[in-house]
């Protein structure tokens, strides 16, 4: 197993280099110039000299191959340089936002798992009953409803309900505070986006749990377990659910990785200054260094999530060996 993990980690290197080359090339194919966007963003005036000074500052005066070599060297040193937009180190820009996205992703995952696995299991056990219909309807609604739209509705509902109750509308704070500084305030900020995202996440996971459970419940070993007189709770929990969780765990891993950088619109709706919002900003401003670093971060998160999923596979299904 350890050898497998080390092999997987080594394989990360070519994956990162491939992704780096791809994002480096793609960013430079987008028409536009960060210096022009920056100098003209407020409607001000600028000239060729100002653009040239800006190019020199952000390293765009160098040839593209030199820029790529510098980028790759920086990649191996874990030094992506300064953001072309703000001049601050890219690591500083990302670290300021990462805890927010991480917290929402974790909370959303917990919410999704708590909802999806019990409901998905019940739905499968009571296939075609009214319970199953209700669970499937909730799941389909979750998949069909965009998180950002749900987020807008949640905020409006909070405003309207609090206004109706107390006469004064209330909404969660729009400036993030860390969990360690003020846990209550922090929770009031992240709970709405986490529930909003968690609902969609749980809907997908619920459907996967249900279909995996239905498949497993028809297996011979389940019939055998029941035939030998094992109580239903043990049949479901020990034999069916554990095996049905294999595809569910894969899904949870992928979804979690997606949430780290993918909460683009949800973060905007709730004014969360997370990685998703930073991603949009970086692409919009054509901030090559920041975009490249964010893509690298996303790749690393996906690779790590996949690795964790693989390790969990072995735990869930002892037949799986990676040696």
């Amino acid at each position, binding site marked *: 197993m350890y050898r497998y993990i080390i092999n997987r980690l080594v394989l990360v290197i070519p994956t990162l280099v491939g992704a780096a080359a791809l994002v480096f090339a793609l960013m430079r194919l987008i028409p536009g110039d960060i210096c022009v966007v*920056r100098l003209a963003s407020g409607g001000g005036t600028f000239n060729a000299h100002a653009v040239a000074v800006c190019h020199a500052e952000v390293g765009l005066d160098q040839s593209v191959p030199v820029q790529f070599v510098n980028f790759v060297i920086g990649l191996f040193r874990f030094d992506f340089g300064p953001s072309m937009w703000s001049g601050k180190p890219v690591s500083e820009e990302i670290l*300021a936002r990462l805890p927010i996205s991480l917290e929402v992703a974790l909370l959303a995952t917990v919410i999704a798992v708590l909802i999806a696995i019990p409901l998905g299991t019940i739905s499968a056990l009571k296939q075609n009953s009214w319970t199953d219909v209700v669970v499937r309807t909730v799941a389909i609604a979750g998949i069909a409803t965009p998180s950002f739209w749900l987020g807008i509705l949640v905020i409006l509902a909070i*405003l309207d309900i609090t206004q109706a109750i107390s006469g004064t509308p209330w909404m969660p704070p729009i400036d993030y505070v860390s969990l360690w500084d003020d846990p209550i305030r922090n929770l009031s900020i992240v709970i709405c986006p986490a529930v909003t995202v968690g609902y969609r996440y749980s809907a997908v996971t619920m459907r996967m749990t249900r279909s995996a459970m239905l498949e497993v419940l028809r297996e011979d070993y389940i019939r055998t377990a029941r035939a030998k007189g094992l109580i239903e709770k043990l049949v479901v929990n020990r034999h069916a659910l554990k095996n049905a969780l294999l595809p569910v765990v894969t899904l949870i891993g992928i979804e979690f990785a997606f949430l780290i950088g993918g909460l683009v619109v949800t973060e905007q709706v709730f004014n969360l200054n997370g990685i998703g919002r930073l991603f949009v900003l970086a692409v919009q401003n054509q901030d090559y260094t920041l975009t490249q670093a964010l893509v690298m971060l996303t790749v690393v998160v996906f690779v790590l999530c996949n690795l964790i999923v693989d390790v969990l596979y072995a735990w869930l299904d002892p037949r799986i060996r990676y040696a």
Partner: protein
Amino acid sequence: MTMMRGVCAAGLAAILTTGAAGVVAAADAPKRGGTLTYVIPADGPPSFDGHRETTFATVHATAPFYSVLIRINPNDPGSTTDFVCDLCTQMPKPTDDGKTWTFKIRQDVKWHDGSPLTAYDVATSWQYVVRPPEGMTSARASYFVMVDKVEAPDASTVVFRLKFATDAFLPGLADPFAYVYKKDILEKDPHWYEKNIMGSGPFKFASYDVGQSVKGVRNDDYYRKGQPYLDGIVGLFAPKQAVRVDAMRADRASLEFRGLPPSARDQLVKELGDKLTVQTSDWNCGNLITINHKKKPFDDVRVRRALALAIDQWNGAPALAKIANVHTVGGVVFPGSPLAAKKEELQKLTGFWPDINKSRAEAKRLLKEAGVEGMSFELVNRNIDQPYKFVGTWVIDEWSKVGLKVNQRVVPTGPWYEAMRGGTFDVVVEANCQGVVNPLMDVGKYLPHAVYTENYGQYEDQKEIDIYNAMIRETDFAKQRALIRQFETHVLDTEAHAIQVLWWSRIIPARSYVKGWKISPSHFVNQDLANVWLDK
């Protein structure tokens, strides 16, 4: 009422702070204390350096920490000509035939680190604005082509020596981005102010959380005794409009200073009633339709004139104003300026005729004469709703009424600039957005590329440059006004180099307990917040 227009949204209760209401407010005695929380519709400023940046995100986040030499009167910011001292003691009269301006600097001003501010700081800051050293940029250096030297002969005097007298100088000097920085710091590290804040303004910098908030506390040593009234300020960055509107509704924020569209205003008025005040003004920003003269058939002035003649600005303005941040029909000069064209003057120009049927008939005739009846072309637009996409969609509909088939291509800001700078577009929706109203400089956008590098019309026009050069050097108001009319006629009518469409409308809803702040025609102006107080 051109400058300060009241609004009444859907007949719902809102206190309209117009010029008259401002007089009533002035009678209230300011209360001290409290923290003003406002939203800044951006993800954060690229840097804190006002000399370098052009975005309102920088000025909204940092102006309260700095002083400037002169400014638009904060008690009369709607004026385009009422300049008052900030760091100087008295507005000077120029000498040497208008070429020398001598400012005496207040001696009671302290930096936030406790050291005294002198004329040397002011002069050095202005030297950096006017002519930045190698490796530095100044976003507004081009506004100061008339400045020859900035000197500080002693610790209390700053002298600006001009190459030629011009009325463009004083409005330029009131630039709200022209923060006065400490000479020692600038000389040690000219980039220091990009990432740090240390000024002499009404508030001291307290903290900045990247992309989250900027905070300041009252400067007890502020040189205007009694000000600021607030204990502190908090600027929250919130790029999404829905968040800002909800935050104001829930009183998480009291206002935003850039401007909300009519729909957001109406929603807030409906929700908050008399807990909200709304200030409105014409905005020193206007959309213009830039035509690529190097693309056929737009090299033909008849085609360019036809494009202008097809647009019914007079009837379009009131309709669009209900849904978009636009309001006033105007020429090349901000409508609130004394130098702006009057309605009867405008109506003589191509694109502003009062009879739209006659105008469109002429457009069709010109297109037929040019052999391009029913032609198709592409309008490039920026992917910003307010008001770009509204204006773009509107003009396409107007053009369809003379048989033109226009496809709108909406692109992000980067590719939008790329298309304009590369000259790869047919026609593009642009904006001319300026700060302090300075008509002589603000019309620079219309000058050919050889003079004004950010003109994307791809044309050269020596006659236009000659008129401009005469105009910028003319200090007699009547003659200056006549020259501006000549310039305007040449640009919009004779050559139809571009089409000036509607001037924007600035709408600022605020919680009604916010007092003292008055709207101006620019979202860059009047942002030091020294005179703001909370009636709670």
